[in-house]
């Protein structure tokens, strides 16, 4: 693989309701912001990927609302519908496939639709949808299966929520910085057993953008390039009943291929920081298992042993993670951006000292049916 790098990043503050901004406004601001960050101009950008979802935006061909705001009027353009990590992956492919620079921009405003209806829409209309399954109830099934399989306790999940909301206090972009105790989480409103309100990510409005460049164009940018060392994605079965929800095998496969591409044999040793898609508190330990950072069932132990805290050997979600800010689609791109800031040494109060190799992760579909794993590094 030729050397390609992320040379610009931009994200909005994540918040409940951006009533003053349309999708178009958000995408324009991110486009402007990412150009400013990189020191490149719109003329330096030769192609654009937008990331949007017709259900979220309540609009068929949702990409139509934002192409011009992304400066793509007379540029090659395409649109990925799914998490931002997937859109960014297509952006990277286009740089390796002949373009010089891809601008990737994602937006979402959960406040404008009914997220329960929207996530209900990913379930099969014939067999599942009328049952009322949506993200929370389906995830509750997964959390329950996980607890049952390995004897994990609800308090272990609560501990993730406490850690990530506390980390969010160091992130000026976070939606829900909070000082919580395990008791607070345990006592919060029961959403769908075993998931309680404080085990859930919020529904946020937000947008984000990155610029991916080939080596020659990375030199034109004013930022310190963050090199893309490996990317892989993978999906597993669709119906929940067809899956072993406690074994994220598609994540295992994606991680394996991403590590191989990056030349990583022992991820726990090689990685300095991880930003993963913790839409619910139980997901963090489960995904850490899928990422091969511990044995199956040992995910909660990583936090119990202090490994994934800010002062631990491998801090996970210094930004506060998705639990603290969840703009759908944007959230995966935000994971990449947070990893980039860490590797540039620009993560300010949430900086992991001396971070050289980072991992970012995104998901698509119910209960993490499809995963995308990114390995980023400071060295070519």
């Amino acid at each position: 693989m030729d050397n390609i790098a992320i040379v610009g990043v931009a994200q909005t503050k994540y918040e409940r309701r951006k009533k003053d901004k349309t999708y178009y406004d958000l995408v324009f601001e991110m486009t402007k912001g990412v150009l400013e960050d990189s020191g490149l101009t719109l003329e330096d950008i030769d192609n654009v990927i937008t990331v949007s979802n017709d259900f979220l935006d309540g609009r068929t061909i949702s990409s139509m609302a934002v192409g011009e705001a992304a400066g793509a009027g007379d540029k090659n353009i395409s649109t990925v519908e799914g998490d931002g990590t997937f859109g960014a992956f297509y952006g990277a492919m286009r740089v390796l496939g002949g373009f010089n620079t891809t601008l990737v921009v994602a937006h979402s405003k959960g406040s404008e639709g009914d997220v329960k209806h929207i996530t209900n829409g990913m379930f099969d209309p014939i067999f599942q949808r009328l049952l009322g399954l949506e993200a929370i109830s389906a995830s509750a099934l997964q959390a329950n299966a996980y607890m049952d399989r390995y004897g994990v306790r609800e308090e272990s999940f609560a501990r993730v929520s406490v850690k990530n909301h506390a980390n969010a206090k160091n992130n000026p972009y976070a939606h829900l910085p909070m000082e919580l105790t395990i008791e607070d989480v345990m006592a919060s409103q029961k959403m769908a057993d075993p998931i309680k309100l404080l085990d859930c990510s919020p529904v946020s409005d937000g947008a984000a953008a990155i610029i991916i460049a080939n080596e020659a164009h990375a030199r034109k940018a004013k930022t310190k390039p963050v090199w893309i060392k490996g990317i892989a994605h993978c999906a597993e079965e669709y119906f929940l009943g067809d899956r072993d929800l406690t074994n994220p095998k598609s994540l295992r496969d994606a991680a394996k291929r991403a590590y191989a591409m990056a030349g990583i044999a022992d991820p726990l040793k090689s990685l300095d920081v991880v930003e993963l898609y913790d839409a619910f508190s139980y997901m963090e330990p489960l995904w850490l298992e899928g990422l091969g950072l511990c044995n199956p069932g040992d995910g909660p132990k990583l936090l119990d042993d202090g490994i994934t805290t800010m002062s631990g050997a491998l801090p996970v979600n210094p930004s506060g993670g998705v639990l603290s800010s969840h703009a759908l689609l944007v959230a995966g791109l935000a994971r990449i951006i947070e990893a980039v800031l860490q590797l540039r040494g620009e993560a300010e109060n949430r900086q992991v000292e001396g971070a050289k190799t980072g991992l970012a992760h995104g998901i698509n579909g119910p209960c993490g049916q499809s995963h995308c794993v990114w390995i980023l590094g400071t060295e070519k």
Partner: protein
Amino acid sequence: MARRVAIVGTGQTDHRSHRPDVNGREMIYEAVKRALDDCQLSIHDIDAIIIGNMDHFESINYVDTWSVEGSGAVMKPIMKVTTGGTTGASVAIAAYYHVASGFFDKVLAIGWEKNSESDTTAAIITCSDPVWDRAFYSGAIPSLATEASAYMKQYGATQEDAARVAVRDRTNALSNPHAHLRKPITIEDVMASPMLAYPIKLLDVCPRTDGAAAVVFAADGVAQKIAPKPAWIRACAARHTYSWFGDVDYNAGLLSLQRASKEAYQRAGIREPADEIDVAELYLPYSYAGLKWIEDLGFCGPGEGPGFIRDGHTDMGGKIPVNPSGGVISTNCIGATALLRVAEAAMQVMGKAGQRQVPDVEVALATGFGGCFWSDVLILGKARP
């Protein structure tokens, strides 16, 4: 360095107005199976999958993950690419970059739609801006009618000129066993069909179709081992020029197609498109496009479209046959429609188009149209670029 990429196999369903016998995943499977059979691969040989359709036509969110049974993506990378009517071509271009980038050797591109599952017009009007246009935007036909009437006024084209395009495509469809509408029509039939929105009549426009298409792309070195005569991707380009219907300048021609085709010709080294391209599969959703957009593609000069058609240059056996498959006017399963153009162009290059084969095709053109007067363009060729 970008790798060279070729199409090695294609598959499509037998397109119908209504397929109550299969659900979406099952319909997708039919096309995938045929594509794999066509190049004698198994799903295990496929490294990654790209799928596209239009969400609100079936009301399925996350079609990538919903589809895995039919698309074959269990324990494989799958990504959804969707850009409106251009989706099928955007999916093909994404497949090209999946391989050209070096990440994957053999990838499967899928486009599909079950138009029968929703009210297509009700679904398409939600593509208009909810604040500004939606209360009055009434689907694709009126905006196309606007384009057609502007063209007629500008160059004096007639309704009969347009009807000739519909008759050409529907006649070609008689040689395509997969086509949806396979009943011969005449210019008189078109003229006598009900007026939908002046000057567009029922037989001037595409039908609503249930169907799917699948195309297998492979890397240089791998492709030649799979197919003796693969269809090489010579160039691809896309322009999604407008975000607002009010910005479209109907007198300037289809700007996105002018720009995208210009870039694609440049990349493929084509100077005289009508002389150098042997066959074109164009996304013509209605007959008037067959007059005007061939001008934007540079097949003939501005205003010369009607004469070019009348002289038979785009007929089978003509200078540059257009839509040997019967085109979009004969089959329109929207998310699949532009990918069908790519598949049909590839079949022409590979010499596998059966009764609808144009002899000795060296170079073929495929286009996609959609969104807010957007265009995607691909050029395929027999010679390794």
